[in-house]
């Protein structure tokens, strides 16, 4: 019986969904086991909302915030910020680190297909984003921001945003070669983008808004602020821009992603 199993294995492969669930489960486990990263991920946006609430809690609807109250403006942008943090920033840094210390090569040494590995990461990032957003909306409610009513549009927007920024995160991880540089590069790209996209303060320059409208962050902000605060439906134009960025990220990721550490 021992040496006779020459060709083909009788045992069937695990179902794809089962494999994906298995992978998500262990991504979650790794994530929660690293308390620093987990706490930072969830505390950061909450603290941010609290600070904004303390600073602008009394600011009611104003033209400066585009006809919204300060917190109505900031709750969706901070929600976007937290999605960017987990889907783009943490993903890029984690992938670069896993590649550098050989963990990705190990994954490649198993039969786990690449789609399942990345599917697991994507699902994990989305789960984290959902928890983040629930916390942000909850804290916002304490400052009198009403719960949004267009959940379907919000869910669709978040889903597209999360997928697109995950793709961009993998793309950035593909382009940078060493893990020490990863956080700096990821932040360097993101920080100015956040500023011009109105994440930290409303931008009243028509030119800047036109430019940032073609970059990935502002369309995400706008697409989420609509159903969050303005009771509008899905914002197709902004979603399309976001999707194009996600697609571009995916192309770079698929073409350039490497599993093995090494120069260049």
């Amino acid at each position: 019986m021992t040496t006779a199993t020459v060709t083909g294995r009788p045992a069937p492969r695990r179902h794809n969904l089962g494999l994906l669930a298995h992978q998500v489960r262990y991504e979650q486990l790794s994530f929660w086991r690293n308390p620093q990263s987990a706490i930072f991920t969830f505390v950061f946006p909450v603290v941010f909302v609290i600070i904004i609430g303390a600073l602008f809690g009394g600011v009611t609807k104003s033209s400066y915030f585009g006809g919204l109250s300060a917190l109505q403006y900031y709750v969706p942008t901070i929600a976007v910020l937290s999605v960017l943090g987990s889907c783009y920033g943490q993903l890029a840094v984690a992938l670069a680190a896993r590649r550098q210390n050989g963990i990705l090569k190990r994954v490649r040494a198993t039969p786990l297909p690449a789609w399942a590995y990345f599917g697991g990461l994507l699902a994990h990032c989305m789960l984290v984003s959902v928890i983040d957003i629930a916390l942000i909306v909850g804290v916002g409610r304490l400052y009198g921001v009403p719960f949004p009513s267009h959940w379907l549009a919000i869910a669709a927007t978040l889903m597209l945003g999360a997928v697109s920024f995950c793709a961009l995160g993998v793309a950035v991880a593909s382009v940078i070669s060493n893990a020490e540089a990863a956080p700096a590069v990821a932040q360097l790209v993101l920080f100015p983008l956040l500023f011009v996209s109105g994440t930290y303060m409303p931008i009243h320059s028509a030119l800047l808004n036109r430019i940032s409208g073609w970059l990935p962050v502002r369309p995400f902000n706008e697409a989420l602020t609509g159903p969050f605060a303005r009771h509008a439906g899905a914002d197709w134009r902004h979603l399309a821009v976001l999707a194009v960025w996600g697609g571009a990220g995916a192309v770079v990721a698929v073409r350039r992603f490497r599993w093995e550490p090494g120069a260049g």
Partner: protein
Amino acid sequence: MRAQLSDDAALAVAGLRKSYGRVQAVRDVSFTVRRGEIVALLGPNGAGKTTTLEILEGFRARDGGMAHVLGRDPGQQSSLRELRERTGLVLQDIAVEPYLTVRETIARQAGYYPAPRGVAEVIGQVGLAGLERRKVRALSGGQKRRLDLALGLIGDPELLYLDEPTTGFDPAARRDAWDLVRHLRASGTTVLLTTHDMEEAQALADRVVLLSGGAVVAAGPPGTLGGRDAERARITFTLPDGYTTADLPLPAAALPPQAAGTGAVAVETDSPTQALYQLTDWALQNGTVLAGLTVDRPSLEDIYLELTSQGAPDGAREEATR
């Protein structure tokens, strides 16, 4: 292509070539590993062992030649998932996620295979029993290496690749790992390992493929490698005071002082019984003794150094003494 392989070959390469830029890492390497056999790729650093292994594992594309693993071509992406399901890989560098426990790490990997072994069984086999709930980051280097071994075994592979498996092990752990590999062979697993440790090759391998400078310089069972069994025996002793090699009944050569102490000489012979008789007879006739008298054949190390110094560029030779 498959037809030319004999049925009992688990793995075969022929005329394998791979260059990195202008460096020819592997040039015309051919060997076969039969099912149930342990074969060691032995050689100094830079000899092409890991490159050869990585081509077989499907990590690197070859520039030329044939490679067959369990009847499939490891260079084809479409073969890779099935090959991964049927082979186990223990890579050279230790890399495991730090925050999971030993059991979780192995259970996660078990979920990737269609018919894995039992997690507890494998933990016991690699000697990690009692550490199931320990976080990987709290393991010692040797324990992490055992975990690596467990990850290579969990899929119940037909063929196991071990890239320098016992580097960093203490002598007891190394012996345990060797026992485990022998146990695997007894249950029908084929093993291809790389090592630069001759003792390991000698202790484990049914056959050794000696690589140097990217080429095979010798292949065969460790006991006969490089014609070792047919080599002349060497009798060494210290020349008694007041005599020269010319006084001896047989031609003898002085050994370099660092090799065997001052005044030591060696006689190489095809018939050690007779030579020894002549020498000891001569000593008794002259009322003297042959201090430090030994008879030996070239060790695997002698053969290794002799063969790898011929084929290898100087740089590779230097590294070999690491």
